[in-house]
């Protein structure tokens, strides 16, 4: 190969085709208030489970929004459904139903596989 004195950088594109929004789509359909989340983190600040683990509702919601593939199964069951988050959310997101729905969608997909 001819040496031009410089090389071409490796491809650094982010592959958007890989983002997988199925959980997002499912939640959007079954609990539309999911779209209202602004990622403010109030829910996480008050979370009963967050007090004992690194369980973080805001992070979870944001990652689902972005279509990250996550292993959420063990994460989401940490929620005690205590309802503090729903009482403090400034946007009226129905967090408790979203949590049940995430649980449901993961279990259903696991079963289909």
């Amino acid at each position, binding site marked *: 190969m001819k040496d031009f004195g410089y090389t071409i950088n490796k491809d650094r594109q982010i592959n958007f085709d890989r983002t997988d929004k199925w959980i997002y789509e499912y939640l959007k359909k079954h609990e539309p*208030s999911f779209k209202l989340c602004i990622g403010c983190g109030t829910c996480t600040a*008050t979370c*009963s489970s967050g*007090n*004992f*683990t690194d369980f973080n509702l805001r992070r979870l919601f944001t990652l689902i929004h972005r279509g990250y593939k996550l292993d959420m199964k063990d994460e989401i*069951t*940490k929620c*005690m*459904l*205590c*309802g*503090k988050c729903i*009482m*403090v959310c400034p946007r*009226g*997101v*129905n967090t*408790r*139903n979203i949590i*049940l729905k995430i*649980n*449901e969608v993961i*279990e259903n997909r696991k079963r289909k596989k």
Partner: protein
Amino acid sequence: MNFDPFVIPFLTGLSFLCAVLIFKYAKWFIKLSREHKFKLLKWIFSHKIILALKEIFLESLLHRKIFRRNFVLGYMHASIALGWLLLIIAGNLETKLHSSKFFNMPYDPVFLKFFVHERSGIPIAAFYTFVMDFLLLIILIGIGLAVFKRFRSMLFGLKRTTRLKSFDKIARYSIWLIFPLRFLAESFTSGQYNTGGFLTGTAGHFFAAVLPVDYLSYPVWWGYSIMLCMFFIALPFSRYMHIPTEVALIMLRNFGIKTNKIYDGITEFEVNSCPRCGICIDVCQLNEVQASDIQAVYFIQSSRENKKDERKAFNCLLCGRCENVCPVGIEVNAIRITKRKQLVFDNKNAFNFLTNGSTEKADVIYYAGCMTHLTPAVKSSMCRILDEANVNYLFLDKDGSVCCGRPLLMAGKIEAALSLVEKNKKKILESGAKTLVTSCPICYKIFREEYKLPIEALHHSQYILRLVREKKITLSNSQQCVVYHDPCELGRGCGIYDEPREILSRTSQLVPMKNEKNNSWCCGGSLGDFKLSAEQKSEITRDVLMEFMAYSPEIIATACPLCKKTFAKYGNAKIQDIAEIVLASILKEKVTEKKVEVLQ
């Protein structure tokens, strides 16, 4: 033996009904849990059966609860149910008198007038004729009211009535027709042979004068038999299934058998005991914010059809207002939770991350609860009150709470909930305390029902009242005008109505309200519901607040941090927990004491 082909439809219907009932009840019996089967066998031959029979008479026949609610509605039910039963009994006795035999065919009493015309020589025949006519008249009036109710339900105190399925319609129209046809058939035959009592005899005379009764009576007897057949066939698939099932349910309930966390045989008996009277519809607050289709009656109907309707299961405040008015006493909330259990994914190992630290020793444990952590004024008032009373207490969840488990239980995640119960229970017992006090009615309910603690569990309103009575704290009356909102979980949930009221009447002017105690509203914030949007919830809350404001209170008092937090979002009025009011009252008393000292 008396026989005519027209008894065949009646006999067919009756045998079909018996077969279906035996099949269904056997199926549900098998589905009962072992513990329940054991209870059934243990109690069925005991004194409890007498209590059960008494209740069956009062509720299934006299319909006492419906009478209390609305006289006309009660009369309608009692006349049809009790009237029909008496008609069957009297008819059977009459038949036995006629034939002077002990055994008779099941159709004999039903069609007696067709077969027997010669009554001379039969003892007290006139009396029986009178009784039978009288009972028939009572039933006819009941049926008349039922027909009228179909078109004018407001007369019976019902704004909304239920929608019906096809089998219900068949059963309903046949029951409407059975007794008028019986009346016509008996009258025609009476007209033919110049017999009958004050009702059928008189009508018979009249009909014989204007109609060709000789030709008409036979087809009408056929019609009567066919209507009975249709009613019997439709019964097990219609709401009239409640007639035999309610009897069985009352029996089972008297033996201490109740739906508990799983949908099993007893739940089947419960859902099939619902006559779909619709009394539960109007009391539900969700009517005001969405189409009415999740109310107890609709939910029970869908359970009865073995459906797993997610919205009907999860879209409900579990406030218990429907349960409170249900004349059959169906435990709708418990059933709804079993349905939720079928729909969610449960995980009993979810909370293994909770490690057990050491617990300090104390006499009393104060467990604020998650919701109380959202209302800091409540927990700080409680701590202050406990300090003032010199109680040696431990604030168990001072640094953030582990949830009590009730919200998980309400969501149907029973295993997960019970694992939290175990974890909390261990901590509570380690402290060696004799008393557990909580500020949250949600926690209080599960402490009472699931924790099975060897120590006493109290809601703070009970504990504060005890402190007052033991003169550990002294209250002064501010004369402020206060209304008290009964939280669902504390009031209907645990039956605590009087303690908070007694405290409030010592601290302020307590104004009674129209909808209070077991008729109190839900604040709208209930953790029972999973489907309402924030707007819908706020609508419920605003409606309730508006009603409170009509009493122009200076303070709206409640005894639940969740209610307080929910109301506080929208109310301009001062919303306070009992603990806050009590603390203010203690402090005021102290100031007055000091003033008195200075003056002396």
